[in-house]
C-alpha cells in the first residue's frame, strides 16, 4: 500500500524533490500526512505544507475539508497557481 505525494514549483524547490512515496497504511488525515512527510523530509515542512496559501489536490481535484486517503492516491501540495 502506498500514497504518492507531489510537490510543485517553490514547494518542490524547498522540499528538494518532486515526489515522495508514503508506504504502508495511508495516513488517516491531512495533518497525519503532513507529519509523515515531516518525519521523512524535515520537521519544518509540516508548518510549510499547512500554510494558508498552499492548496492540496487529491487525485487531480482540489480538496475542501479533510479527506481520508486510500491506497494508490496521489496527493499534491501546490503553491499559488497562475496560468495565462
Amino acid at each position, binding site marked *: 500500500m502506498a500514497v504518492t505525494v*507531489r510537490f510543485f514549483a517553490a514547494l518542490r524547490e524547498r522540499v528538494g524533490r518532486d515526489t515522495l512515496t508514503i508506504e504502508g497504511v495511508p495516513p488517516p488525515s491531512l495533518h497525519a500526512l503532513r507529519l509523515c512527510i515531516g518525519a521523512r523530509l524535515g520537521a519544518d515542512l509540516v508548518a510549510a505544507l499547512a500554510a494558508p496559501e498552499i492548496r492540496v489536490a487529491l487525485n487531480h481535484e482540489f480538496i475542501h475539508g479533510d479527506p481520508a486517503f486510500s491506497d494508490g492516491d496521489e496527493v499534491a501540495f501546490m503553491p499559488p497557481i*497562475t496560468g*495565462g
Partner: protein
Amino acid sequence: MSHAIRIQQADFDVGAEWAELQRQLAGRAGAMASFCGVVRDQFDAQAIQDLELEHYPGMTERSIEAVLQRADARWTLDATLVIHRVGCLRPAEQIVLVMTAARHRQAALESCAFIIDSLKTEAVFWKRERSTSGERWIDSTSADHTRAARWRNERQ
C-alpha cells in the same frame, strides 16, 4: 460545441489554428475572438531573461476544461480552443492562445475575456520569472482576482 485544450512545449501557429477553426465552422459562426499572451521584455523596469512554466499533467488540463465548461454554460458558443505552453520561454515568445467562435460577437468577445481571466486565477500552472534582478515565482495579482470576481458577480 467543440472544446480543444493543448498543453505543449512547442510554439503554436495562430494563423493555422485560426484557419482550421474557420474551416470547421464554415459559416456557422459569424464571430471569432482570440487572445494571445506573450512574454514581455520588461517587468517593473527589470529586463526579463526568461519565464519558466511548470504544470501538473492531468490536473492542468482538467482545470482548463472546467473553465471552458463554465464559458459554455454562460454563452452560446460554437467552439473554444486553449493552447498553453510550458517550459522555458524567452521575451516575445507566445505563451497562451484562447480562441472562441460564436454566432454573435458579444458571446465570442466576452467568453474569450472570461476564459483568459479565469486561466489567470484557476489554471494549474506556475511561472518563474528570471530577470536582471533575480528570480521570482509569479502569483496572480489582486487585479486578476478583481477581474475574476467581476465575472462571478456580473449577471448577464
